[in-house]
């Protein structure tokens, strides 16, 4: 993916550029809001990473301007601000996702990959399949190797989100936000317990595990080892 990083802190920008390159993406860097906006307007990027506090033009204005011009490029807003309303403001301005500093790079990577995927016009898939695990979104039925699996509603939504992002890392925070719609820190790793319950239902008794734990990052549904 072509990523534009609009970030005024050189070290952070450099770190992001290098890390994104290592993760197989290409990244350009803009050091202030005006340059960033100009670059986003002239070049086609798959995703924008925009810091909220920027010299010359602040991040939210950059996003608002782009959205007013009809630009739908997915935007991840980064912010060191921690106000209760900041996330709401960021999303209202047209951001697609919001990440508060300090963040783990794995979290940022997982999020932009999920956003990049969202940008690909999603033909309303009615069925997700990973290996022999099939999830039918119309009948809400899940089968593994043809055998039906009984899931609680929450477990179903958990699996649905994981399978929608099959082959990609999904962080615990992403699960909490997308499956539970919670944007807060649950203190303990409650998500782990829910995932391990799900895993026991879909992987138990099968040779090939499909629900993997990615160390230091989160989870991934994938056919085959990591």
């Amino acid at each position, binding site marked *: 993916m072509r990523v534009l990083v609009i970030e005024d802190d050189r070290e952070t920008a450099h770190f992001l550029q290098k890390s994104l390159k290592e993760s197989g993406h290409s990244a350009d860097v803009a050091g202030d809001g005006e340059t960033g906006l100009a670059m986003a307007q002239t070049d086609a990027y798959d995703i924008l990473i925009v810091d909220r506090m920027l010299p010359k033009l602040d991040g939210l204005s950059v996003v608002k301007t782009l959205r007013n011009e009809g630009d739908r490029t997915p935007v991840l807003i980064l912010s060191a601000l921690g106000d209760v309303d900041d996330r709401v403001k960021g999303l209202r301005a047209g951001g697609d996702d919001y990440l508060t500093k300090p963040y783990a790079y794995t979290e940022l990577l997982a999020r932009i990959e999920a956003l990049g995927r969202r940008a690909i016009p999603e033909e309303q898939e009615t069925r997700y399949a990973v290996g022999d695990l099939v999830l039918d979104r119309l009948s809400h039925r899940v089968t593994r190797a043809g055998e039906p699996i009984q899931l609680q509603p*929450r477990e179903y939504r958990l699996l649905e989100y994981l399978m929608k992002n099959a082959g990609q890392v999904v962080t615990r925070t992403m699960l909490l936000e997308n499956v*539970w719609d919670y944007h807060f820190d649950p203190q303990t790793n409650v998500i782990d317990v*829910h995932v391990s319950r799900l895993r026991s239902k879909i992987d138990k008794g099968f040779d090939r595990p499909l629900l993997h734990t990615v160390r230091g990052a989160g989870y991934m549904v994938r056919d085959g080892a990591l």
Partner: protein
Amino acid sequence: MTALSDFVVRTMATQAFRLAAASATAFLLVSALIVGLLFWQTNMLLTDHVVEELRGEAAELAHEAATATPEAFAERIRVRSRVAGTSLYYLQDAGGQKLAGNLHALPREVAESATGGVFRYAREGDAPGSDRLGVAVPVAIGGGQRLVVGRDVEEQLALAARIKRTFLWGFGILALAAVIAGLAVGRAVLGRIEVINATTRSIMAGDLSRRVPVTARGDELDELSASLNGMLDRIEQLMNGLREVSDNIAHDLKMPLNRLRNSAEAALRDPRGAEGYREGLEAAIEKADDLIKTFNALLLIARLEAGVVEESAEVFDLGRLVRDVAELYEPVAEEAGLTLAIEAGDGIQIRANRQLVGQAVANLADNAIKYSAECAVARRSVPSGAAVSVKVRARSGVAEISVADRGPGIAAEDRDRALRRFVRLEKSRTQPGTGLGLSLVAAVARLHNGSVRLEDNAPGLRVVVTLPLAPDTRSTS
């Protein structure tokens, strides 16, 4: 001398002096006006009296002149002239020769006017140049003779001059007294304000324990001093609170920072090399994450203490949210061998930030499970019945969330402290997690005009959070 002039200048610049000076000036002006008016009136009265008298005598003499012979009349004038007093007479014949009277000459000022007037004259035996003032009227007696009747008004003049002088002296003394009083009042006020200034300066220099002295007089300055002291008390209290808060924050961040450093050092010393480094770095990241969590919790509490949530507030069903959050923790409770009883009906609407209330409920559930589990392990037995219970109900205008556990509880004397900002009870420091859970719950409740109370669950702790119901549901329920 310079000190004195400096004092005068500074006193004159005081509000008190300006007020005293202004009131003294106004007083002087008004009394000058009144005295002037009185003086003028008195003078008028006296003059009028004299003129009246003269007119009366003139009429009388005119009558006598008409009835008596000229010689007899002249004799009468002569007799009158001899009486010591202030009466003045001058009678001359048609040839301009003086016939009688105690004036040397016909006063020209009077002789030439028909109605009379004032004139100056000299008395016999007086030193030259010491003229006296007189008032006279001409009397029409016919026959070419001219008569002028007058009064000496020198005494009246002297009286008027004396009155004038007295008043001038009075005004002078009054003005001086006003200035002195102004200076004295200014000095007194300035002195006390100087004390207040000195105190505030030493407070500014860092001694927050100083207070402005309050006298027993109970005047405005005492009132001012008292409110200043009240303000200082409040500031000191806030500063102490802040100090406590920053101490707590420092402690909360120092410990994990130290652990982070330890694990980095241990990794460096690890003889296994690359493998050890990797493990060490992973441990370091994990500890950094803990640190970030604590930091975020502290920041969030600080923001909540300062903030308002208008923008992100929404009306939602509290029962549903609490049920959802509790369900999130249900598997965790089960893994810990505890049962989680949820009792939350629908229809309890509150207007709040959903995420914050969710966070608060999550913190409560998390704490309840953690402490109940700890206690269960210590007793080597799972308590019978629901170990953790989460309830939501609406009661007298407020929504009430109560989360109860079978943990060690919090001693009654520690309960108030546990809800204070950034406070971690010593016990909680040994537990995993930020230990700021309750502080955050309290901050969320405060932000939404709600409250938190801690109760004894016998055994265990029950935390009751109340939040105001959304306005529309309050009216229907």
